[in-house]
């Protein structure tokens, strides 16, 4: 009973934290963009503007819910919900920290579900998220939205391949799909790289790491690969026709997906919640180390967005199929050789 209660508590806390983090990310996006452009950014609502996401949310709720004429009403409403739900669901298997406590001999671990197919779950559910974008573009009955949706589809297919191959390289090394196991393996003392570096997969799989990080940018539709949105060409892409809370849901979905992808990068390549050279680190320190690493990758998302221009669409496709896929294949071939030897 208490175990069930603990699980429910974990679900509430993690989902609450994720959605709040998505809100804070929208503020961070605006503040970081302002700093990069010599501006100050929103700083009027609350101290340092921390209540700005709340004000934005209230504004979104009071906006008109608009469904364009000729739109497929059912799909139009379904799309943003699907987009946000998929992003929220994929966080379920991320191991945020180690052991919290033990109740009646049952260990309570800091993740909603400790699935044996964790990596597969994130890929599968993350892949569902793209349906939100495609359906949103299709159901809007607008050429801009449709173009955004179609581009998103093509982009997802080309980059998901390389991304999964990068995950596969890590999985082949660790011999498990369980994310917690992957973290524990990186933490163990005998996995030290060259005997002194922490046993993080980034040192064993540098190519896979670089490819994976770039693929996460494409997966989450972020600059410089934001072809689903493409403000300057497609007005707003798939969410051109959306307003009010439906629009906000798309954004929550996008930021949640960014957070989940940062979590995945940290878990797969940077040792997750483990602290280098301190295997017995207490729960809170492990959680803090995890959040610190995730914050860096979230910052990287924002930093890159405000530094790089958008690619051209054919460049994106060339990069995906002619560069990333062969590199990922070579990487997995080498990994396979190394593992089997």
């Amino acid at each position: 009973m208490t175990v069930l209660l603990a699980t429910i508590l974990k679900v509430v806390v993690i989902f609450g934290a994720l959605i709040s983090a998505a809100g804070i990310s929208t503020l961070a996006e605006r503040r970081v963009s302002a700093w990069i452009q010599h501006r100050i950014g929103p700083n009027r609502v609350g101290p340092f503007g921390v209540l700005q996401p709340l004000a934005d949310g209230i504004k979104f709720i009071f906006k008109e819910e608009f469904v364009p004429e000729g739109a497929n009403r059912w799909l139009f409403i379904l799309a943003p919900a699907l987009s946000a739900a998929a992003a929220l669901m994929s966080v379920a298997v991320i191991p945020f920290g180690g052991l919290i406590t033990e109740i009646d001999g049952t260990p309570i671990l800091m993740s909603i579900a400790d699935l044996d197919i964790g990596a597969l779950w994130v890929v599968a559910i993350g892949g569902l998220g793209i349906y939100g974008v495609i359906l949103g573009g299709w159901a809007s009955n607008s050429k801009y939205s449709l173009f955004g949706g179609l581009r998103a589809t093509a982009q997802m297919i080309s980059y998901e391949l390389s991304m999964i191959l990068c995950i596969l390289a890590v999985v082949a090394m660790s011999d498990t799909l369980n994310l917690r196991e992957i973290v524990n393996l990186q933490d163990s003392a005998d996995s030290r790289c060259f005997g002194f570096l922490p046993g993080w997969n980034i040192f064993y799989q540098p190519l896979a790491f670089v490819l994976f990080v770039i693929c996460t940018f494409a997966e989450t539709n972020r600059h410089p690969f934001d072809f689903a949105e493409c403000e300057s060409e497609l007005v707003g892409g798939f969410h051109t026709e959306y307003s009010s809370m439906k629009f906000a849901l798309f954004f929550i979905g996008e930021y949640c997906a960014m957070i989940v992808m940062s979590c995945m990068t940290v878990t797969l390549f940077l040792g997750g919640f483990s602290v280098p050279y301190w295997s017995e680190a207490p729960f809170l320190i492990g959680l803090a180390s995890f959040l610190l690493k995730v914050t860096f990758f979230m910052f990287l998302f924002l930093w890159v967005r405000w530094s790089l221009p958008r690619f051209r669409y054919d460049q994106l496709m060339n990069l995906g199929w002619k560069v990333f896929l062969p590199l990922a294949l070579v990487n997995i071939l080498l990994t396979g050789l190394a593992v089997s030897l």
Partner: protein
Amino acid sequence: MVIIKRKQLTWMEKAYLPEVIRGLRITLGKMFQKPSTRQYPEDPLITTEVTRGQPRLVVNEDSTIRCVSCGLCEIACPAYAITIDGQETDRMIEREPEKFEIDFLRCILCGFCEEACPKEAIMMSDELELADTSRQGLIYGLDKLKRPVSALKKRIAYINKINDRWRTSSST
């Protein structure tokens, strides 16, 4: 026809990733520079004697008004913003305004009144903020227009300097 010779990219530039990192370094550097935004209400605008703000009436040190209600500014005003009613006074100058109104809904801050004034009595101040909730509130009377000469000293000196330039260079 113009043939544009494009720069041949080196191998490092074509690899793109090093250039990306270079770009990221630049933007990171920008993040730690001072923002050029001015937080307006707390951090007011910087004004100098050249600032052409709203016109104000100069009051002497003995708290008498300089204006002799000659009406030149009223005539010079292209927006018909100024209304003057004169009256007699016992002072040397014999006349002073009984009513002096500037309608700031009409005023275009051109400074012609300042140029027309023979007595250095109406001067463009450095006051720029103008907001009210009613139209009537933006028609300023004598009470709102009077400023001590000390507040407008710099502007008067500046206008004198400008005028001196024309006086000395005139050949006639």
